[in-house]
C-alpha cells in the first residue's frame, strides 16, 4: 500500500497516499476541534481542506488558542 510520511506538529506521522487534509484531520481526531492549519509554513484556509492533497514529507502545523500576552 502506498504510504506517505510527514510531520504533524514536528512528530512523524504516516498516511495513505492521496489523503486530503480534511481526511487527515479527521483521522487525527481534529475534526471537532477549533484549529488552524499551515503546511510547510504556509497558511491553509479551512475552505481548502477538502481539496488539499497531502504530499510525502509535508510539514503540518495544527494550532489552537492558548493564553498569550
Amino acid at each position, binding site marked *: 500500500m502506498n504510504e506517505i510520511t510527514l510531520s504533524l*506538529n*514536528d512528530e512523524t506521522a504516516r498516511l495513505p497516499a492521496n489523503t486530503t487534509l480534511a481526511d487527515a484531520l479527521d483521522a*487525527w*481526531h*481534529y475534526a471537532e*476541534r*477549533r*484549529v*488552524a*492549519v*499551515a503546511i510547510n*509554513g*504556509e*497558511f491553509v*484556509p*479551512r475552505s481548502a481542506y477538502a481539496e488539499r492533497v497531502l504530499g510525502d514529507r509535508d510539514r503540518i*502545523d*495544527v*494550532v*489552537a*488558542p*492558548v*493564553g*498569550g*500576552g
Partner: protein
Amino acid sequence: MNAPHDDTLSLYGETFSSRFLLGTALYSSPAVMEASIQAAGCDMVTLGLRRQNPAAGDGDAFWQILRDSGCRLLPNTAGCRSAREAITLAQMSREMFDTPWIKVEVIGDDYNLQPDPFGLLEACRTLIDDGFKVLPYCTDDLVLCQRLREAGCQALMPWGAPIGTGRGLMNRYALETLRQRLDVPLIIDAGLGAPSQAAEAMEMGFDGVLLNTAVAKAHRPPLMAEAFAEAITAGRKAYHAGLMQQRQTASPSTPTLGQPFWHSGG
C-alpha cells in the same frame, strides 16, 4: 483636550472605553483569568496560537471564557522569529478568531526577547497590505517607529522593558521622544511590573498599556488587575490635568507673607 469622562481610546477607527489591554497567559486557572479580566474592565485581551495535540482538550474552558467576556480579541504572533512565520501565524489567527486585529511580534533575540526591527517592519508591511489591523510590538527606537508609521500602522506598541521583567519604563528619554514625535496612539506593551509604572506611562501621554505577567503572577491577580486599572485611569487624568514643572529648589506652598514668630532681628 477631551474631558476625562468621554476620553475613549481610538484604534483603527474603533472606540475602546478602556485603555488597559490584558494578556491571558500565566494565570493559575481559567477562573482566575476570568476574574482578572473582569476586574481590569478591559475591552481587549491578547491571546495566542500554539500547536495542539488532539488529545488535549483543556483549551475549551479558556476559549469559552474569552468568548463570554465580550472583550475584543487581539491575537499575537508571539515566538515568531521571521516575518514569514509572523505572517503565516497572523493568517491562521484571522481565520481562527475571525478578526483582522493582530499584535505582530517578531523576536530577534532569545535572551531578552527583543523585537527584530527588520523582520517586524517587513511583516507589518505585508499584513497591512492584506487588510490586517496591525499593532506592532516594537522597541522604543524612533526611526523604527517612524518606518512602522509610514508602513501604515495606525498605532504602535513600544516596549517599556523586556517581556516579563517588570522593570518599568527603562528608557524614558526614548519614550518621551516617541510621544513628542509620533501622532498615532502609542500603547506601552511589556515590561511593566507595578501600577505606578503604568500610571507613569499614562502621565507621559501614552494612550494605553498592555501587560500580562504583572497581573497573572501577583498573589491576588484580580486585585492587581483592579490596581492597574485605577493607576491607568489616574495617570490619564493627570496627563489631561497637566503635570507641574519640576524645580531644582524648594518653593513653599503655604504663603510666607504673615508668617508668625518672624523677626528680622533674629
